[in-house]
Each structure stands twice: as C-alpha cells, then as structure tokens.
C-alpha cells in the first residue's frame, strides 16, 4: 500500500528505472530509427511495467494515509425529482461518522463542468439523472461510511423524466436547463449546393446504444488537507489542470492551494475527463481536517462518469450511376443526458466527420445534442466519430449494393486524399491514404479459419457461443465486412491546445541525467515510455527519467483526442532541443570554439562540424543544471461559423480501416468475430509494440460496441450497472488483429506522428456490422447488435 504521506510516496515507481531494456522485436518493424537505444522508433519497455507486473504500482485505489477517513456518496435513485428535504441527523449521529455534507456545505461554486458550469457538486433543488450525487459522508471505515450514506434521508418529489431526446428538443418538453430548449448544441454544416439531386439515392436510419468506457480501475483517490488550508489531491484523472480549476472554484480556493498529483490510472478512455470524487473528497478532507479516501465500487462507477452518447442518425446519399457521391444529407441526434460535459465538442465532431473520409461536393449536416434525464454523456474514445461511422459506412454498403458495385471499390472511388476538402471547407493538409488503407485490408491474407459444418467440429470453442454449446455448426454463416473512418487529433474549433514540458539536464551521481516533468496523464497508453524515448533520442547523454505528473508544472492538456504523443511528445521534444542548444552553447564556451556546427551525437558526444569529437563527456558542462520549461502548441484552429459550419476547425486527421470476418449463428443470433484486419496510417511508429497494443485495444472497444456493450437505460434508470450485465469482450470474443501500419509523416507534427489511439475504435464497429449483414442478409441498423435483431430482423 502506498502511503501518500511519506516523503517518497509521490514518486511513481517508474522514476527509479533509468535504462531501457532490449527492444522487443515488433511483428511489424517500423522505419529505421536513430541509433539511440530505447529511442524513438524502438519498442522500448514501459518504465512502469515492472511495478505493474509485480503488483507494486500505486493505483488511485491503493493509496493510504495515516488517520485517513473513508468517503461515501448518497446518490439519487430517481432520474428526475425535486428534492423536498435532506435529513442528515441520523447519519451524523452514528458512531464513527465524521462528516455528512450537502450542497449548502460546498464552500465555493455549487456547479462545475468542463465546458459549462452546470453540474451540481451536490444537488440541492432538483436531481436530473439516476445516480446524481446528493450528499457525501466521511467515516472511520468504509462500512460505516456506507451505512451512514444509507441513513441520509432524502425526500424526493418525483417528476416525469424526459428520456427521449427527440421529445426533449421538440419544444413540448419542459426545459431541464433554462433558455436552452434542451438543445445543448446544434451544429449546422452547409457545404456546396443545398438543393441538388442525384440519379441514385439511398437513405437509412441508424442507431447506436450508450457505450461505457468500462475502465477497470474504479474512480478513486485520496485528498490530504494542507496546512495552508488547501488540498493535496492524489487521483486518477486525464487532465489534472482542468480538474484543478474546477476543484478550486468549488472549494473557493485559489488554484495554487489545490495541488494535484496523478495516482496510478487503471484505464480512462474518456471517462476520467470529468470530475468524479475530486471535489467531494476535498470537501470532506477540509471539513474534517483528515485525509479522506474515496473508492467507487463497480456499480457506483457506472454512475460516476459520463458515457458515450447514444445516437440516432438519418442519412441520405445521392450518387451518380457511376458511383460518385453527389450529396450527403445527415441529421445526427445525440443524447447528452442531464448535463453538458463535453457534449458540444462531441456534437461538433459528429457533424464534421459524419460523411466519413470521402469526397463529396455537397453536404447538409445537422448534428444536435440534447439535454435529457438520462445519464450524462461526454468523452469516450472516438468522440463523436464513432457514432457517425456506423451511419456513413452502412450507407456506403447500401449504395454499393444499389449500384451493383463492390463496397470497397465504391469507397475507394470516393476516398478522400491529401488536398481533399472537408465539409467545413478545410483542406486536408496531411496525408490521407484512405484508398491505400482500404486496399490493405481488402488484400490482407485470410487467416485459416475454422471450417463450419454440422459434423466434424473439432472444437466448439471456435464457434459462436463457444463452450456454452449452443451450436455445433448449425445455421452458422460467415460474413465479411469493411469499415473506414477518421477523426481529428487534438482539440479543435479554436481551442487553445497546448502542452507543457520541463526538461532538466543535470549531473547525477553516475553522470548526466535527463529529467522530464509534465502534467500529462499516463493512463495505460504508454505516454511515459514515449516521453522517455524522446528524451533519449534528443538528449542521448544519460538515462532519462519521467517525474510524476502533477500540477507543479504547466498544463499538458488531456490524455484524450489521440493527442498526447503529438502534444506532450512535442513539448518534450521542444524542451529537449532547447536544452541541447544550451548544452552546445556551454560546450562551445567551455572548449573555446565557435558554436556553429556543433552537434550532440547519438553516442552522447559533442562533435564539431567535421564530426570530430569535441567532448566525449558532457558531465563537466553541468555544474549547474540546464532546465527549460516551454509550452508547445499545434497550429491554430478556428471555430466553425454557426450558420454554415465553415472553418479550419481541425489540426490533423487520422485514418484507419478494418475488415471483419465473422461467423453468425443465424438461428440464435450469436456472433463470433473470427478475424479483424486493420490498416492505419500512424505517421511515425514511435514505439511499435505499444502502437500494436493501442490498435488491438481500440479494435476490441469496437468489437464490444458492435456486439455487446450497452448501458441500458429505461425510463431514465440504468438497468445494468455491473460487469454481470454490462458485457465487455473476453479473450474468447477477440480475434487476432492483423495489421498494416503506414508511416506517412505529417510534416507539421513532431517526428511526423499521427494520433493513434482512437481510429481503431471508429472503423471496427461498422466493419463488424457489415460482416453480420453479409452473413445473414439482415439489415443491421443498430449497434450493439442484439440476438433479437439477427433472429427477427430478416
């Protein structure tokens, strides 16, 4: 157990491991890299790997402090109700209970939010979703805290919940947030001609259920009251600086009295962008002047974070007889739930990417996100692009069928490429190898797959249903489907997106050490490895360490939007380059030569223009450390104009394609994914092994969304807040993913990198839906695909 009060407790274990291990041979070797062991382009080992395999890595739920209390949250059982009264007297009188707090006890702002401050820290007059926080408790042990939470008596007057987003925005529904008409945002994009017809038209309606990020490490953390009246927060989060701003406001404290250190993060996928227990535990810690730990259970976790927006999509595609797109009309309706979270940005993405990575001269796009009394929705891997990919890819298949064309050929015919124009008018400046990606998955070898027959089945574990013994091959039909998708990397629409890195080159006991300090969250994706690799490559003079992420350095932005390798990687690279420049200045001064032509070689020596060694050890230059902290920005983006949605809103576009091969037991509607082939342009494979892990993991989220993952909300109530009934893929549900990695560098990005985390989650789901359609002939229009849809859909 990690004692956060001890002096070295804030040191995450990876800082003690200075040297890279032997690179592991990747299945798909990357471009040759510069010759620095463990540098950029190698499959350098994760520095946090050893503590993680040993069970020593301190996750946010593993923290401990002397004298700590345990927090618990009282949540609303109703999706929409007026709070008549809250009686905390019994709870307060219980042995071992140290605090019971309600909205009146919030010291500062009573509402918070990432984009709009509209979510109560603790609800006081109205609860707007099932599971909303109403009161918080701190007690000497977790069981007492739970019992005390139960003893808080909240009297509700139930109201009719608004659960249908279409009704919510109809004008007939009461407003959940005054003056909004329950429209959180309506994105309009008008591209080209608006009144245009085409000889071939296909229309379709598609629907996506509410997916959960389902990270394994529950929301949790520890807050220590500071002697200065502030708080020290140890939490698993994606963006500690935005946490800090919100926490400080709600606590009524200046930001410098809210100090956040990243605790070990057990996955994120978007669900840790919004606050969970940060303000609550801080309030309890300040009130009791004791450390407070809060750890959500799995059930509570389903209420503790936002989910992926469910979507209802209407499409109309017009094309020529030859298969050239003439126009696309799209209406996307997203259910944003009770509070704003990042809904406005999700709606922006859903609009901009709604026609897919295709060229189309004319587009009419409306992307609307509504307030309802359903659970709040916000960020999840793929962020708006996932929803619409189901629609645009289904439409391309439908159009291909109508035209009698091969679905891949139709996609290729309309594929976007570098220089294509987005519906927003933005020219795609970076490589856009949509055609090449599609060709790669189409031409990927077909793996040897189990032969399906009524007899001679070797192993039922290879069949749909597996060991559940539901088919021995009866009614099993194979299908193949394709999907391609894209989205932006980094924050869009004029957001000032930057990351900060402080790099220090100093003299350690055994020579020079490069320390990297940033506030970017390592959420499992391997950013900490990438930053070390960059430091090794740019400053190959000694071991590189990455310090714990905290708010003692400037903001790094969120670990989201596939942006951290680009942004924090870029910040580390930039600061390293400045440190290197200073080092060369010092070398020139030290030896007494001109600065021009000096360089730091990969072997750590300083060389002159003739490649002669000027200094073979830089230690002597480091009597004082060299320290540089700089912000790194990508190029500016711009808002979309509100009427026509025009504007250079995006930084960079990332693309991926999938081919899915499935077996479907058409009699029972059970699907087994046999093979996934994917192709992705990553710009630069910074760490091939980690890259493969991102693609495989991202694909698994798409498999889950296609076939099983849905938070079921009925009448505003969540019916399956558990891992028994919210299903995510097991190892028997995930096939091997074969992949083609392309490295078409983006000249504007550090090392040419392209964000890689999200694209695999975008194109995988539509590929599976297409494969199930191919296998069964059923017009699959909704994911997750339920057995009913297959059995009764024909």
């Amino acid at each position, binding site marked *: 157990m990690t004692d956060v009060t001890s002096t070295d407790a804030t040191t995450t274990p990876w800082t003690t491991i200075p040297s890279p291990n032997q690179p592991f041979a990747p299945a798909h070797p990357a471009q040759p890299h510069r010759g620095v062991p463990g540098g950029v382009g190698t499959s350098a080992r994760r520095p946090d790997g050893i503590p993680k395999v040993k069970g020593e890595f301190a996750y946010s739920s593993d923290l401990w402090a002397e004298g700590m209390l345990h927090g618990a949250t009282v949540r609303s059982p109703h999706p929409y109700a007026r709070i008549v009264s809250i009686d905390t007297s019994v709870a307060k009188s219980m042995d071992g209970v140290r605090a019971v707090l309600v909205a009146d006890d919030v010291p500062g702002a009573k509402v918070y939010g990432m984009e709009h401050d509209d979510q109560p820290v603790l609800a006081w007059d109205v609860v707007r979703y099932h599971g909303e926080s109403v009161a918080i408790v701190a007690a000497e042990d977790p069981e007492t805290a739970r019992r005390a939470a139960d003893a808080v008596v909240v009297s509700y007057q139930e109201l009719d919940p608004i659960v249908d987003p279409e009704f919510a925005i109809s004008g007939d529904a009461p407003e959940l947030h005054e003056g909004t008409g329950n429209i959180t945002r309506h994105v309009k994009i008008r591209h080209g001609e608006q009144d245009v017809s085409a000889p071939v038209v296909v229309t379709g309606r598609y629907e996506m259920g509410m997916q959960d990020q389902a990270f394994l490490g529950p929301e949790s953390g520890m807050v220590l009251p500071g002697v200065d009246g502030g708080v020290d927060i140890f939490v698993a989060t994606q963006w500690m600086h935005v946490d800090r701003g919100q926490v400080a406001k709600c606590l009524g404290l200046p930001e410098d009295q809210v100090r956040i250190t990243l605790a070990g993060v057990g996955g994120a996928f978007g669900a840790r962008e919004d606050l969970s227990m940060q303000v609550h535990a801080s309030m309890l810690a300040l009130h009791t002047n004791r450390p407070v730990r809060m750890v959500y259970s799995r059930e509570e976790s389903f209420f503790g974070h936002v989910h992926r927006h469910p979507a209802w999509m209407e499409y109309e595609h017009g094309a020529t007889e030859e298969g050239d797109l003439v126009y696309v009309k799209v209406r996307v309706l997203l259910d944003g739930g009770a509070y704003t979270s990042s809904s406005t940005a999700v709606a922006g993405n859903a609009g901009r990417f709604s026609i897919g990575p295709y060229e189309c001269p004319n587009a009419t796009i409306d992307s609307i996100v509504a307030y309802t009394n359903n659970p709040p929705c916000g960020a999840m891997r793929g962020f708006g692009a996932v929803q619409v990919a189901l629609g645009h890819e289904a439409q391309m298949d439908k159009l291909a069928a109508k035209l009698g064309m091969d679905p891949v050929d139709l996609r290729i015919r309309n594929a976007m490429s570098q220089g294509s124009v987005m519906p927003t008018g933005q020219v795609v400046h970076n490589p856009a190898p949509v055609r090449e990606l599609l060709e790669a998955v189409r031409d990927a070898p077909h793996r040897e797959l189990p032969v399906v027959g009524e007899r001679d089945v070797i192993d039922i574990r290879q069949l749909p249903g597996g060991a559940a013994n*539901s088919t021995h091959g009866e009614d099993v039909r194979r299908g193949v489907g394709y999907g391609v998708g894209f989205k932006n990397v980094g924050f869009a629409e004029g957001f000032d997106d930057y990351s900060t890195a402080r790099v220090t080159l100093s003299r350690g006991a055994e020579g020079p050490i490069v320390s990297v300090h940033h506030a970017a969250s390592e959420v499992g994706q391997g950013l900490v490895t990438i930053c070390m690799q960059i430091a090794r490559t740019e400053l190959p003079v000694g071991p590189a360490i990455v310090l714990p992420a905290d708010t003692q350095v400037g903001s790094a932005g969120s670990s989201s939007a596939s942006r951290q390798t680009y942004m924090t990687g870029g910040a580390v690279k930039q600061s390293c380059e400045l440190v290197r420049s200073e080092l060369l200045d010092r070398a020139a001064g030290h030896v007494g030569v001109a600065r021009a032509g000096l360089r730091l070689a990969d072997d750590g020596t300083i060389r002159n223009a003739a490649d002669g060694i000027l200094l073979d050890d830089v230690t002597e230059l480091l009597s004082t450390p060299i320290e540089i902290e700089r912000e790194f920005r990508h190029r500016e983006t711009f808002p979309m104009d509100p009427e026509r949605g025009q504007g250079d809103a995006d930084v960079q576009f990332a693309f991926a394609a999938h081919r899915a091969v499935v077996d479907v037991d058409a009699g*029972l509607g059970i699907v087994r994914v046999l093979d996934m082939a994917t192709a992705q342009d990553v710009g630069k494979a910074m760490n091939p092994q980690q890259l493969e892990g991102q693609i495989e993991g991202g694909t698994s989220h798409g498999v889950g969304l296609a076939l099983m993952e849905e938070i079921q909300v009925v009448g505003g109530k969540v019916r399956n807040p558990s891992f028994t*009934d919210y299903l995510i893929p097991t190892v028997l549900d995930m096939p091997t993913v074969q992949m083609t990695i392309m490295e078409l560098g983006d000249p504007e990005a550090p090392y040419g990198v392209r964000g890689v985390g999200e694209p695999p989650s975008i194109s995988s789901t539509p590929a599976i839906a297409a494969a199930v359609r191919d296998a069964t002939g059923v017009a699959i229009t909704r994911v997750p695909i339920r*057995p*009913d849809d297959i*059995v009764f859909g024909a």
Partner: protein
Amino acid sequence: MDFLQPTSLSEALAMKAERPDATPIQGGTDLMVDINFDRARPSATIDLNRVPELMDIEHVGSDVWVGAGVPYLRIMRELQSDAPGLCMAARTVGSPQIRARGTLGGNLGTASPAGDTLPLLVAIGATAEVASSERGRREIPVRNFIIRPRHSALESDELIVRVRVPKARGPQQFGKVGQRNAMVISIASFGLAFDLDQRAVGTGIGSAGPVILDAPEANAHVAEVFSTEGLWDSAAPLPDGVAKRFGELVGQAASPIDDVRGTARYRRHALSVLAARSLKWAWNEHRETTKGTRA
C-alpha cells in the same frame, strides 16, 4: 455480522437451527457479490467450507451423491462419464475462477432461474437432500426446489447436504445462449437427458420463467414418436420434423419475460432452437455409441 464456522454437519445444522437468520456460504460466488455490492447484510454467515460431509462424491447404486460443497471444477474432473450433461453445464458456469469455488449447493441455494446447472438437474430428475437438526433429512426434487426467484423450498433451519444425481442412462446435452462467448449469464438455457432404460426424455429450461421449468409435452412427444417409430430399439436417424416439433413444444413450455438480458420472444425462440439442436446431438451421439458397440 457474525461469522460462524462449523466443522461438521451436525454442528452446522445446530448453528442453522439456532440462527435461522444466518446465511450459509460455500463458494461465495453469489453471496459475496451481494455483500460487496451492499445489497445484502446478513446478520451472520455460516461458512460451510470446513464441513467434510458436504465435500463427498459417493457412488451408490445407480446414483451419484454429490456433496453440496463440491466445486464445479471437481464435478467436471470426476463425473464426465456418470453425469456428462452436468459437466457440460458446469463448464458454462462463470469463469475458471468461479468454477473453482461455485457449488451445486450454492446454485440451488441462490435459487435463481438462471442457475446454470439446474436445468440439467431437472432434466435428469435429480433431487436435493436437505437436513435440519430437528427433523433430519428429506429429499426435494430439484424441479420443485425453487419456489420463485431467490426463494427456495429450504426451511430456515435447513441446509442442503447433497444432490442425488442419477447416473446417465443415455446421452445428455446442455446448452445456453448468452451475448458473449464466455463468462455470461444465460439469456436462456436448456438441459436434455435421454433415459434409454425407461425410454424417456427429460428436459429442463433455465432463465425462461420464475423457476426452472420442464417440458413434459415435449418429453412425451419424443417418447411417443420413438415408440411408434421403433427408434428405441433401432437407433435409426431422427425422423423428419421430430426435432423441430420438440423445439416448438419446449418453447411453448417456457414462461419467459423481457429483462435486461433478453426479450421473452427471443427466449422462447432460442429455447426452440436449442432444444431441437440438443435432441439431434444427443440422438446422434447415441447412434454413434451404439454403432461403436455393435462394431
């Protein structure tokens, strides 16, 4: 919460008699979930892990008596030939970790219509032997063990001691449908057992009613067709339409509802499909075996 830990059956029964409010715990795979999720706070638990009488597997004549505390993993290892269908069902319970701990006693005691082993136990006509310190032992057919979801025929002073599993007298099958390829609670499940001695068929239906159901009309239909067509003796292929009709009758016997895992309509359909397939598999297996014996 008290924690009671008897080391013999008589001690356990005495405790249960004294503390009828206490909840027995064996593998903990259901009860601990309720405690962890704060859905249950029993005033006491009685840990039955150390009651040796509950850990026995005894072969007595045509029956195997399986102790209520025998984990699925052991059933799968030891009862492949005597109770193949039970082993198939046990294999579908949760995960390897769950199978290492979960027991027939727990599956019965939890009294969920989704209990994976229960349809097969119903299909083979298994009985649960329960005991109280005061009234001694009695047998309850598994078919009647669940009264309604989460409520069993067990009296408050009784414990489940063992399950009488009639040794297989013909081919058996168990299958279930879930939306994931492993570790899933069934949307519907079905157990089938042929009794070649009695020339009968037994069925059990899970997750499609408030209790585990059987399908007597389906059973009777198969028995009748087999008698008429002489299949019991000839082991000839299934006549056309028998499996389909059997499936329909099984579907009709179900009493499903819509819930978070599936719809009533789908459940009924899935049971028809599963039952028809199971009948074919079982009969084909019998025919293969018979052929083998004759050769």
